[in-house]
């Protein structure tokens, strides 16, 4: 049969960021997909050659505007591990509170984009309205809506007062109730089911074979979540990853919806368990030059991120590398696209929640 090549991207209504997939078609079926990235490759990792390690965290945060808090946190954790820095307890709790709030805003952003892609404008507006309220919390507590610059090697730059934490929990509760109504539409609307149910199925064994991570893997029933390592105080919380088993586009939506609710619950637990009181230390002063190397893992909204840092005793790092979840999920995306109908490609690509800025660094 004659094959046709259709370029998908770099600009496409479902793509907030540029990526190209050369789709090779036989009739309406995709038989091959060749990815090309690099349209927004900024060479951020190479900046370690000329940006001091104390300043590099601000660069790392700018890898991506959606995951910026956790990129900053991961970088600081890596340096703290190399330099054997003990971070004050309150700072550790504050970090994971912000991290879970980041997960909520990222999932709300994605759910909105998803709704927009499958033609449900109203749902898109609801999700993004709720996300604005989360960004208000960030603005109030860190000073920034997108780039927060609140992580420092040794702790955090700003505290959140106990009364403010209580107000945040109340706000999240209120938001959770509003979100439940929106979630009900995602889960039950016939047009959404029609577009997503049974489409782009990634069975559990395939998800394992392509080393998928995050909601992508969990929607296929793979129990994988870096928070299960218990690091960063997650061992003190009641936590079990959200799993679905259908492995289709709808399952990936449902996992993220349930994770919004789970993150609200985790913030509740964190505020309850963290040390209370005004004036508690939130930062350990760090002196000297780092020497050594480490790998650090975190569970970002899109899945596991791995940071590698190598330091040589000077103010410039020898190597910084971030392996982001979208990068790890590209092979799964290619696998899903092969064999599907051309009309389903946009939804399949969107449901991996691709973050191209993260992928390219």
């Amino acid at each position, binding site marked *: 049969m004659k094959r046709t090549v259709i370029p998908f991207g770099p600009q496409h209504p479902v793509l907030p960021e540029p990526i190209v997939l050369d789709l090779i078609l036989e009739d309406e079926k995709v038989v091959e997909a060749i990815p090309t*990235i690099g349209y927004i490759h900024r060479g951020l990792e190479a900046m370690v050659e*000329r940006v001091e390690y104390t300043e590099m965290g601000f660069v790392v945060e700018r890898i991506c505007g959606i995951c910026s808090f956790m990129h900053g946190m991961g970088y600081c954790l890596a340096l703290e591990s190399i330099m054997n820095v003990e971070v004050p307890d309150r700072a550790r709790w504050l970090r994971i509170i912000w991290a879970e709030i980041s997960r909520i805003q990222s999932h709300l952003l994605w759910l909105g984009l998803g709704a927009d892609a499958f033609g449900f404008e109203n749902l898109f507006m609801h999700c993004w309205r709720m996300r604005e309220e989360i960004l208000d919390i960030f603005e109030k507590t860190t000073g920034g809506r997108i780039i927060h610059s609140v992580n420092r090697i040794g702790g955090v730059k700003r505290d959140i007062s106990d009364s403010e934490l209580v107000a945040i929990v109340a706000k999240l509760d209120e938001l959770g109730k509003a979100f439940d109504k929106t979630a009900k539409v995602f889960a039950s609307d016939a047009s959404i089911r029609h577009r997503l149910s049974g489409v782009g199925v990634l069975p559990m064994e395939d998800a394992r074979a*392509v080393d998928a991570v995050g909601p992508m893997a969990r929607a296929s029933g793979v129990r994988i979540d870096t928070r299960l390592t218990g690091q960063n105080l997650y061992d003190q919380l009641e936590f079990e990853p959200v799993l679905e088993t259908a492995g289709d586009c709808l399952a990936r939506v449902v996992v993220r919806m349930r994770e919004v609710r789970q993150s609200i619950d985790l913030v509740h637990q964190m505020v309850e368990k963290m040390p209370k009181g005004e004036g508690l230390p939130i930062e350990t002063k760090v002196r000297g030059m780092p020497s050594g190397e480490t*790998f650090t893992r975190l569970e970002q909204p899109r899945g596991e991120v791995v940071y590698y840092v*190598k330091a040589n005793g000077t103010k410039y790092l020898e190597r910084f590398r971030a392996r982001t979840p979208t990068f790890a999920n590209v092979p799964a995306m290619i*696998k899903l696209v092969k064999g599907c109908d051309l009309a389903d490609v946009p939804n399949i690509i969107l449901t991996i929640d691709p973050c191209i800025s993260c992928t390219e660094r």
Partner: protein
Amino acid sequence: MDKDSFLARVGEYHKGGWRLALINATTVLAADEATPGVFEVTWAFAKELEFETIRETIGQADAVPSVSEFFGAAFLYENEIRELFGINVTGLGLDLKGQLYKTATKIPFSHSAIRARIEAAAAAAAAATVKKA
């Protein structure tokens, strides 16, 4: 590197149910320009809570074998280290033929490219000092 023993070790990880978490390369510059530098290539594997690595140090002209026969997702990392570091990877599962990244500098993490950037930064700093003085 001993290709056979390396692939045997990777195969053991695969058999043991580990997943490929990362393949990373680091350009290690020699103290002076006349001495050739090397690359450190690291394969990282994760299994539930565990995380382990295999590290190989290779010369600039050396090749590393692809691990695609064990880990289907390896092709992306391998195309990346080939395009960004110029490391020759043999037996790629999917050869993207240099199309993965669009970089202004060809092979931006090669020894010569890094050295050129460091020298340019030093020259810019020196010029700034003179201007200030």
